């Protein structure tokens, strides 16, 4: 594979890798400022067997969490150390970061199965628009292209929609991207024939109409992958299919309508204050209707939104807001705005001793989420109480 990095001024550079990287038995974190530096640090280290922690340096809460929970000093690390190679962080259901360890076997087996989904496509070029700190970016954006012979893999820190079309216009191109770009491309006033291309998208809100428009404008193919950091890949679907088909080696069931998964891609251990083993089947927060080896996704039982590829918990935002003096309680609800690219937004309701400026709220959220701009509306009520089931409710 030939790796090419496109700089902000559009100049291209072949990425050279130095495999004489010193390896340590300790876990080492990689949080490079751009994709070029990341690849140059990550690929040689990973190939040489270095254990690597991946996290987004803009995520200040995660940075603090990682500093306070040095994995090299944790109890039970030897069990996780035996095979684990990578550690990813994700928003836990409680709203605070949880680490998921991945073994080489977890990753290699999944890449092998993802590769079978490319059967029928003659891929000569891969364009990667996704960040590498998350499992989807590493698996689909780096390890999958690495497993393809004779391809050119093009990466850039920030793509605009037309830049993707430009890179993909030669055909036989695999584009590793997100629902944001699929939606954006569908809205451009462009028509092209990209029939020999395949676009792979991570899971996220993507309406049937947007997919139809995308496929009709570009006469191309779309594959969506469904999974999570802890579980790895679970299922896939092509085009406008409504049902998700399970990936090879994944078995599913449901308990109280929640999706349960057993597979070789699931983490054996997670980091949740300490290193704890995960048992299978793993219960997700996804509400589904199962039919054989496929399922229809009905919704999620927790309050997680995805903004710019980042999973953010509404509960976490509530906890952050409640650290602001004068805010007694905060209630955060997810609002879906189909017409927007950033389709998931939040509605904040506050019980406060005085009105809080939006600037104060933005500043507080930026301490945790960096430059990410989370669209929100702000409302005040006299009292936010708790229901008998422990859920927050407000009384006007």
């Amino acid at each position, binding site marked *: 594979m030939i790796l090419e990095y496109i700089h*902000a001024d*559009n100049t291209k550079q072949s990425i050279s890798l130095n495999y004489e990287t010193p390896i340590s038995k300790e876990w080492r974190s990689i949080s490079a400022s751009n994709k070029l530096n990341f690849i140059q640090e990550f690929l040689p280290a990973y190939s040489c067997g270095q254990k690597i922690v991946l996290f987004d340096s803009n995520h200040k809460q995660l940075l603090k969490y990682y500093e306070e929970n040095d994995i090299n000093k944790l109890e039970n690390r030897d069990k996780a150390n035996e095979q684990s190679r990578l550690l990813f962080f994700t928003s836990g259901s409680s709203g605070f970061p949880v680490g998921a360890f991945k073994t080489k076997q977890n990753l290699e087996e999944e890449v092998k199965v993802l590769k079978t989904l490319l059967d029928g496509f003659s891929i000569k070029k891969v364009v990667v628009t996704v960040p590498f700190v998350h499992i989807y970016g590493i698996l689909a954006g780096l390890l999958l292209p690495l497993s393809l012979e004779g391809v050119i893999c093009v990466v850039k820190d920030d793509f*605009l929609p037309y830049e993707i079309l430009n890179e993909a216009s030669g055909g036989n191109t695999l584009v590793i991207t997100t629902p*944001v770009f699929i939606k954006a491309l569908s809205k*451009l006033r462009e028509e092209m024939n990209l029939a020999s291309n395949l676009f792979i998208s991570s899971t996220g809100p993507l309406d049937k109409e947007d997919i139809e428009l995308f496929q009709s404008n570009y006469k191309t193919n779309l594959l969506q992958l469904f999974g999570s950091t802890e579980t790895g890949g679970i299922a896939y679907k092509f085009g406008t299919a409504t049902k998700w088909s399970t990936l090879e080696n994944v078995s599913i069931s449901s308990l109280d309508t929640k999706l349960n998964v057993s597979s070789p891609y699931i983490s054996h251990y997670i980091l949740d204050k300490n290193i704890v083993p995960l048992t299978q089947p793993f219960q997700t927060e996804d509400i589904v209707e199962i039919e054989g080896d496929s399922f229809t996704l009905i919704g999620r039982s927790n309050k997680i939104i995805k903004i*710019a590829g980042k999973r953010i918990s509404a509960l976490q935002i509530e906890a952050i807001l409640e650290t602001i003096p004068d805010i007694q309680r905060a209630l955060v609800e997810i609002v879906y705005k189909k017409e927007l690219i*950033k389709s998931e937004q939040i509605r904040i309701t506050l019980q406060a001793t005085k009105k809080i400026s939006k600037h104060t709220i933005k500043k507080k959220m*930026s301490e945790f989420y960096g430059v990410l701009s989370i669209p929100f509306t*702000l409302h005040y009520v006299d009292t936010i109480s708790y229901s008998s089931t422990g859920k927050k409710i407000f009384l006007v």
Partner: protein
Amino acid sequence: MITTDELKSAIIENLNLEDISVSEIEDDMELFGDEGLGLDSVDAIELTLILEKEYGVKIKDMANAKAIFASVKSLTQYINEQKQ
């Protein structure tokens, strides 16, 4: 010709920035980053769609976009130049 206020209204409406009014956005205010309006990379994608939909102006690469998206003033100037 469009005015900076017209563009601000279009940005507020299309990015659904319900918490901001036209008068709160200064012509020279940075659109992206920690200071100024605080838009992010997904908003940049949305902005390119707004410009195409509302004004028929296409922004095809990020190298040019950085200077064009610097502020409402630079963005307005670019749109008006393209429409001439």
